[in-house]
Structures are given as C-alpha cells and as structure tokens.
C-alpha cells in the first residue's frame, strides 16, 4: 500500500491524523526552521516527544520538517532542531538546504533524510546527487511535474518519491519562489511563511471582501463568492482594462483519481498539504485518502472525493499532474 503522509500543525491534529489512518505524520518546531511558521502553530520539544510516542504506539511514523534555509550566522538554531528531532525519536527529517543535509549526514548519520519539496529537485541527476552525496532516502517532488515526468524520474533513481495529492497548491517551483518577499519582505524559504499573517488585512468594503498583503490589494471577492488565501500567485489583478488571475485560479489540489496512475509511475508515498489547518480538516481528509489508498491496493474502484468544500476556492484541480497551460 502507498504510504499516506499527513499534516499536523498541533498535537491535537497529530492525534486526529493517527486516529484517521495516517501512516506517517509530518510536523515542525514552533520557529523559523520549518516552512509553516504561523502564529499559534507547531510543536515544542516536549510536544514532539509526546506526539512521537503517541504515533509509534499506534504504528504510525513522525517526520519532522526542518525545511527552511538557515540564515548565515544563525545555523545553530537549525542544528539544534535536528538534534532535538533525533532525541524525540523522529523517524525522519525533511530537509531542503545543502549545508543542513551535509551536517545531518555527518552528525546524525542514523537519522533518515527526506528531501523537502522546498529543494525543488525535479530531475534524476539532481535527485541522484542528493542521494549519493547526503544519503537522501526519499524525495518530495515539486508540484510542477506531470505523471509522465514522475514516471520518467522514477525509472532513473533508486530512492523513494513522495508527491502531493491534496491541499493548497503552490504553482511555482517551491524553494525558488520569492513572490511573498516582494510584498512583505518575508518568504517561505527564509522565514517559513508565505503571505505572513502580520502583513495580511481583510476589509468588508461594500459587498466585496478586500484582501491586502503588505498594503497591496490582491483580491476583491464579490459577495457570495468563495474567499481565497491572500497569496500573490493566486491574486486577481487588473491590467490594461483586463481583470483576472495571472498565474492560477484560487483552487486546490485533489489528485484522488490519479492515485492508480501515480502508483504505476512508481510513487511510494502520497502527501496531504495543510499543517496550518484544523483537526477537523485533518481528520476528514486523512480518512478519505486512507480509504482511497486501501481501495487502490485492493484493486477496487476509488471512492468519490467529497472534500472540495474544505479547500481554497471550494473547487478542486489535478494541478500539473494533468496540466494544460493556457
């Protein structure tokens, strides 16, 4: 059966994921070492140890995301996170930075290393280099590849691949996107936040909901229309008397029906996005995908997904897996 890797932003969400059937849970510390550094979210050292014990007692694994890029002079913060993840009993760490991968291979050789989507490794040569140089055992592939491209990669590598199947959709190659920095001075790569809440403001203006990021208006959502996240890549802008979404509509990924194709392409693990989401989201999405991977393993028809109401745009897309660019 393909491994189901599920998000947890809080200990309560971790427990909900385990009880809903997650094979593995990924989470991070409450600081800038992980790419979901949002207020009120993430784990203390004690909470991580308790979460690992809870998951292990029920046969699930815990993967710790330490997937931002250390600032020069501040490397000890990232090194401490690695050591503390190992002490807590983490089954693997998810890393993006070359220096951090080298540090882990040298100082924590028994700690399993996964390559984060933030590293944007999107071809066999890059993946094989990470595997040979740093002992990376699994690669989380960027959300810009088609199923055919994933199959081609898997034919030329000896490590596991993990792909996103549900949730918020980055339309850029992660780790290389600096759009958020232009409006706020902060980015997921360096600070662990895309569109940081400190720079987001909403206002009801007549019948519209205006969303501003760093003072720039990026959406005006009409009354009754679904509200999107305040990200620049899904902003709605006016230029030369035309108004529209430049990069991508505000929709979310749902690749449930592609699970058999992803299995045939050699994918080992399926990832659900959403560490910033509640335990209600985690429980419902994990339960739905656990049923889907079990059906796939048994050769049965996949259940119909009914998760779109939980997603941005309240509509689903298969993203780049079956992309036709406009």
């Amino acid at each position, binding site marked *: 059966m393909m491994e189901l890797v599920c998000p947890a932003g809080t200990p309560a969400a971790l427990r909900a994921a385990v009880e809903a059937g997650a094979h593995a849970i990924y989470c991070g510390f409450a600081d800038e070492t992980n790419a979901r550094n949002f207020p009120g979210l993430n784990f203390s050292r004690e909470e991580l140890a308790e979460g690992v014990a809870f998951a292990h007692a029920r046969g699930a694994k815990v993967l710790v995301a330490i997937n931002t890029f250390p600032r020069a002079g501040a490397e000890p913060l990232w090194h401490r996170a690695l050591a503390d993840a190992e002490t807590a009993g983490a089954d693997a760490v998810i890393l993006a930075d070359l220096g951090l991968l080298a540090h882990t291979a040298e100082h924590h050789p028994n700690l399993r290393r996964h390559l984060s989507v933030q590293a944007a490794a999107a071809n066999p040569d890059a993946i094989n280099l990470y595997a040979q140089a740093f002992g990376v055992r699994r690669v989380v592939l960027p959300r810009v590849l088609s199923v055919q491209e994933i199959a081609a990669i898997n034919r030329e590598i000896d490590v596991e691949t993990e792909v996103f199947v549900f949730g918020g959709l980055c339309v850029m190659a992660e780790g290389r996107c600096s759009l958020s920095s232009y409006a706020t001075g902060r980015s997921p790569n360096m600070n662990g936040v895309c569109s940081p809440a400190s720079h987001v403001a909403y206002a009801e203006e007549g019948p519209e909901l205006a969303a501003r990021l760093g003072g720039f208006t990026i959406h005006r959502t009409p009354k009754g229309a679904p509200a999107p996240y305040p990200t620049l890549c899904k902003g709605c802008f006016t230029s030369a008397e035309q108004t529209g979404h430049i990069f991508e509509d505000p929709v979310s990924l749902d690749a449930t029906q592609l699970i058999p194709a992803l299995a045939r392409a050699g994918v080992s693990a399926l990832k659900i996005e959403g560490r910033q989401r509640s335990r209600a989201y985690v429980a419902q999405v994990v339960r739905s995908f656990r049923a889907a991977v079990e059906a796939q393993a048994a050769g049965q028809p996949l259940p119909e997904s009914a998760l779109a109401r939980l997603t*941005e745009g309240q509509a689903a897309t298969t993203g780049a897996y079956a992309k036709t660019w406009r």
Partner: protein
Amino acid sequence: MQTAPPHTRPALPHLPWLLSRAAAPLPLAPVSVMLSALTRKLVQAHPAMLRRLGPHADRHVLIDPTDLPFALLMQPRTAQVRACRRNRLPAHDARIAGPLSAFLAMLHGAEDGDALFFSRDLTIEGDTEAVLALRNAIDDAELDLTETIATAAGPMGPGLRRALARAERISGLALHRMETTGDWP
C-alpha cells in the same frame, strides 16, 4: 486543469429570529460575568492555550455572532469577556463575525476555520495574526463546553449534560467536542 464542481455542505444553522429577539433585552452585565467565569475555567483547564497564543493573548478580539443581539469582546490573557451592543462597540484589535453556529462548530472541532473563511461564513478584520493564533490555540485545546459547564454545575451536572445534548439535537449547534473520526461527516 480540470475543475470539479464544488461539494457544498448543508448551510450552517442560524438562531431562530424569535430566540434572537428574546435575547435582546437580556442585561449585558450578568451575561459578561457568566461568560468570563466560563472562559476562566477553560483557560485554567487548558494552560497550553496561553503559551500558544504568546503575545497575542493580550489582544482584544471582538467575537461577533451576527445572529445574537450582542457581540463579545474577549482578552485571552485575563479571560475577560464583555458583552456589548453593536451600536456601541468598544475598541478592538480584531473582529471575527459569523453565525453563532460557526463559532461553536470551530470551537468544538466540527468545522475547519479556513473552510468557514473560504465559504464566507466567517469574516475577519483587523489583526490577522491574533485571529490565526487564537484559532490555532483553541483547536489544539480540544475544548468541550458541555463538559466544562456540566462539571462546574456539580450535582446538577448530569441533568445539564442531558439537556445540552437535547439542545444540540434540536438546534443543530455543535455543543460538544468531536471525539472520534466517526463524529466528522
């Protein structure tokens, strides 16, 4: 790109107009005292909430259940809740507005806060960081209003628990914590 039609859930229940009107003449001072006492119990029973909130625990957040005749100004650090009329709203750092059922569903883990924002059931204004921190801290605390109220009621607890379960069935409001994955749709 393939776009599937949206799957919608049943609309959130709104308080019946008559009930909302009946609550209008309620004196606000006793409402404030009762809600502050309840909030104090919740904060004392879940100290991790304040740690998660960090500096945001000092913010004044206006909880605005649009189907009630009053809004609630809350400061997590002091566990103070003040009921106030909408024509005399006090200064606040952030405002969250929506039907009472949305707040109760989010508090008990029955609905996802982002999904309620996407569907426009909840709107937020002001300090977005404080709102997110509060949402995340409450979600992690796994609060249960029925249990908190019933426990505080002492010998009247079992009867109150039954009454609240009945009120939940009739009103459609989420009044208890989601316990297992089977509780979610």
